[in-house]
């Protein structure tokens, strides 16, 4: 802090001396005095701490310290404001016409919204569709282990309801932490074999608030190009420096790892998904962990889909590859998908979370936190029915041209046709224009353990039939 003025004076000295030589001894003296002051300042015990405090408070930008002292709400461009008289301002206000708050839905969007199927009664492997009243085979929900509608879980949920009520009526910090939450956190940590775990009340928000809790401005994130939307949002909020590597290409990841020698060590993170929501690919976890150790990165792994779906007892990717979960620094999962409840968790060894949605949002209803029962069931479900990848994503069945809307329309036709024939699948819906990487539209087919092999074969036949039919109709 005190070193700053010294060079600035040294710089001005030559100019000044050219104009007036009499000031030169005075300035030299001033410089000396300042240097002396700095030395004495650093001699005082603890002064280094103060200097460091100021330095770290302004981080990489000394200007911040100065601006922090000024009013924070003051706009920087205030000096550049155009001066208007009151009358002119009134005129400008009268002239201004804002755009409508929401642009009306396009025809396609309207059709899309109207085609969202509504289920009458409980969702599960064979739900009933409200509009037609027909029972269909569900290949759309993430009900991998077939836990939806499990009677044991229902019983336990009712028990919990009778003891705890429904809502917890408060954020975790203010008497919103119910013992059931703590038990579940403990259970998840034990289940995965991590030191501790923390719960969030919605799966989607979990990762997008875990990331900014750890990654701050100036940190480095290396992330897969095709991570899901929630991760993208989390990275955006964190304001860290991001380097993207090619989708599921660990070689490309390794290239991104290179760091210039001599630069200060910053926090570095690798963020990727276990099973990609986008295309169902699985990441090579052992290799990833090897890289992480080699280059001293921390790994944030999103297991939203893989948790509860792969591995011998559904413990996710770490079990599939037989890697201890403690090797993954932050393991984020969702209780909403595999376990058919709601919420998400983050498990890891160094939990000192300050995630925004954790602090500010109400905790999840206790009865949804009753996943203990689920765990019991899970352990009984020996080897989940599908040997391979449970999320199968169908590639778009068109030629090389990449016309987003046309493809979407075809896929929607297929989905509609399949539904008429009694199979419920869904297009993987995305927000166009907001995702970082536009992917080709796909149809998502999710296999579940709750259906027999025969039923799945039959469903696959129906989907195939629909595809052939729709494409056949299009060709002529």
């Amino acid at each position, binding site marked *: 802090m005190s070193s700053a003025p010294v060079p600035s004076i040294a710089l001005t000295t030559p100019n000044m001396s050219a104009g007036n030589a009499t000031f030169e001894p005075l300035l030299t003296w001033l410089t000396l005095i300042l240097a002396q002051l700095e030395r004495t300042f650093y001699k005082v015990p603890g002064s280094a701490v103060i200097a460091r405090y100021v330095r770290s408070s302004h981080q990489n930008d000394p200007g911040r310290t100065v601006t922090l002292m000024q009013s924070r709400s003051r706009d920087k461009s205030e000096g550049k404001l155009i001066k208007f008289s009151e009358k002119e301002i009134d005129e400008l206000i009268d002239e201004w016409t804002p755009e409508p708050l929401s642009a009306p839905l396009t025809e396609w969007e309207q059709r899309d919204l109207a085609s969202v199927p509504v289920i009458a009664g409980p969702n599960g492997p064979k739900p009933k569709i409200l509009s037609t009243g027909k029972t269909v085979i569900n290949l759309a929900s993430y009900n991998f282990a077939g836990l939806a509608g499990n009677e044991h879980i229902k019983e336990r949920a009712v028990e919990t*309801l009778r003891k705890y009520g429904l809502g917890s009526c408060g954020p975790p910090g203010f008497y919103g932490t119910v013992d059931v939450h703590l038990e579940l956190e403990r259970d998840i940590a034990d289940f995965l074999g991590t030191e501790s775990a923390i719960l969030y009340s919605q799966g989607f928000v979990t990762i997008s608030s875990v990331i900014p809790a750890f990654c701050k401005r100036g940190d480095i994130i290396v992330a897969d190009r095709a991570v899901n939307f929630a991760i993208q949002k989390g990275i955006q909020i964190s304001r860290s420096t991001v380097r993207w590597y090619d989708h599921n290409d660990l070689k490309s990841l390794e290239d991104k790892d290179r760091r210039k020698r001599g630069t200060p060590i910053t926090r570095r993170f690798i963020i990727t998904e276990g099973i990609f929501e986008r295309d169902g690919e699985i990441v090579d976890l052992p290799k990833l962990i090897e890289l992480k150790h080699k280059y001293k990165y921390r790994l944030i792994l999103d297991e939203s889909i893989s948790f509860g779906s792969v591995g011998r007892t559904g413990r996710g990717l770490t079990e599939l590859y037989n890697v201890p979960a403690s090797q993954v620094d932050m393991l984020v999962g969702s209780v909403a998908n595999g376990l058919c409840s*709601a919420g998400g968790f983050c498990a890891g060894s160094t939990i000192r979370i300050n995630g925004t949605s954790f602090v500010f949002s109400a905790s999840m209803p206790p009865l949804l936190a009753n996943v203990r029962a689920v765990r019991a069931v899970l352990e009984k479900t020996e080897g989940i029915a599908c040997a391979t990848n449970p999320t199968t994503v169908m590639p778009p069945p068109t030629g090389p041209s990449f016309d987003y809307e046309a493809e979407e329309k075809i896929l929607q036709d297929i989905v509609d046709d399949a539904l008429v024939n009694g199979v419920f699948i*869904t297009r993987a819906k995305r927000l166009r224009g907001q995702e970082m990487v536009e992917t080709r539209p796909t149809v998502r087919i999710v296999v579940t353990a709750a259906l027999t092999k025969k039923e799945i074969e039959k469903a696959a036949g129906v989907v195939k039939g629909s595809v052939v039919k729709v494409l056949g109709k299009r060709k002529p």
Partner: protein
Amino acid sequence: MAILTASRSPCSLSPSPRSQDPFWVKKRYSVTQLSPITVTSHLSTVHEAEVHSRSRTITRTPTPVHSVTPSKTSGDSVLDESDDHNLHAALTSEKTSNTVQSEFGHCASQSYRYISQHNPDKPVAEDEIEEPPYYILFTTYFSYLLLVVIGHLRDLLGKRFAKSSFIDLMIHDGYTPLVSDFQSFYARRLVQRVNDCFYQPISGVAGRTILVYDRYSEDFNRTQIYTGTTTRALNVSSYNYLGFAQAHGSYADAVEESIKRYGVSACGTRLEGGTCDLHRTAEALVARFIGTEDALICSMGFATNSTFIPALVGKGCLVISDEHNHASARIGVRQSGACVRMFKHNDMGSLEELLREVISQGQPKTHRSWKKILVIVEGLYSMEGTMVNLPKIIELKKKYKFYLFVDEAHSIGALGPHGRGVADYFNVPPSSVDVLMGTFTKSFGAAGGYIAGPKRLINSLRMRGHSGPYAEAMAPPVLMQIVATTTSIMGVSSVDDLATSKSTSHQPTFKSSTNRVAMSEVADEYLHPGMVPASALPTWFSLPSSLSDGSEARERIRRLAFNARYLRAGLKKLGFITYGHPSSPIVPLLTFNPGKMLMFAQMMRTRKPTPLAVVVIAYPVTPLVTSRVRFCVSASHTKEDIDVVLRACDEVGDILDLKHGKGKRWPIEEIVKRSVELVHSI
């Protein structure tokens, strides 16, 4: 005899006559060992005593001067019936009586009611901020300074001499610490000192009372040791405004039925196969409740803001946000990419000035005009207890053509004569606000949030919000709680009831003809949002008559309004500095010094015979100097519960030197005695 018992309160929980009440005695049992038999038998005696006292006091209580509610709606017969019903349920089923008193207190006296409504003859009052004496400010700053200096000293010495405990803060094995020591300084050196006030786990329902796990720390709050015992404390901390956090009663019954029918999960996102008929029902009900064309429901309150605001605004748009807006709205705006400007908290002058500037200047650098301007305010600010000046904002909205987003997370259910939030309070049509957002976590005892508005807007949000395609749909039991509570507030219309019974073979079971007269009377008064036609509800869903005619919920709304005003007025008369609007159920009491805040929480928690669970808040949630205690009153509190809180504050306030407010002070006994007068005077 009558006089003798009359002195005994109609509401239970008053500590003086029942100081030996085992309910309040610290129980040495682990949760699992709780033997229901003793508690039930005890409670049934409590109930009996209550019935007796109530039946006698009713004849004496409502003096016409203080009678708040019009006599036609709160006829004794209706009241008796509803009470009898509860009582009946309580006595017949052991299970129900187990927690009735601890979840929701009975308060029969009609004088302890108030209608929360803005008086249109008066201008909206400005929030007044009372300043403490200078020595308080000085000691507060000084204590923070001291804490910072000592903290750094400990860091400095610790890193030299006790390296092992600082390993997480130093570079080790080539890894940079996960949190730098500067970033975590506040958490380690300041928050940790008061950490035993936060994250205290509870068990059971966060209703009128709360079961808090006892714990202590031997290493300065680094770890907490649980003794395995629990203490039942009076709960003035949860956002349980209407007291719907109940594990028993008709609402919980409806939820249980929904679990049996629907399971616990919706299995999927809203747009990808997670939508079930219950979602449609709940959304239609919520829209009706708020008074808008349509509404959408999101499974998490925080996410309602953070995932739908980006669908409203984007690049080239400006968001004008109140400086005390909740973090979720800020994150939503940050994700949207819109520009943000803030105005001084609830200061309409500052807002107008800012509006004139931004509209005339246009976008920074380019000076193009803004695509649109969205003003985001909250109905009731959760930390300040202040209420937005809605009439003034709507007036500004007409002139400056901005769009208005009102976050009613705390105000919905808690404000207004019909519980419809801040628009209802000011008697402003809901359609004059563009986007009405709110949560179900607070008043409704559920979880998640909603956005209500015109159909076109809601449909576009359904398609374009992040939650639609990516976040899981709301779980059926939560939906059912919303359906049950909103229905009971609105009431079920009897006219439509008949029509549906003709058309459908499944007759809803709640059609009891006994209450017809009362219901038609209620219908007159209850025009505002309209009652729910029975056809809008699931056929298997039924509510007892006291709930389906809306009378029970109306009682709750009025009790909440009374409790809120009484606590605030009482604290003011005791000499405390409080912030916020007179009708707000959030009552912050300023303690300023962080140390006093900690002591306050501890003294309340360990108080005999009635411990109190209070929430304390300090920097960074509040400005540095204004550390505070925040009370959240509930309809489940009785007037005597508020007396208990006031007495406790009176004593603790004297010890901690917290009474710095101006204005005339009353002794506590006078406040308790003249409570009704006090409530009507502010």
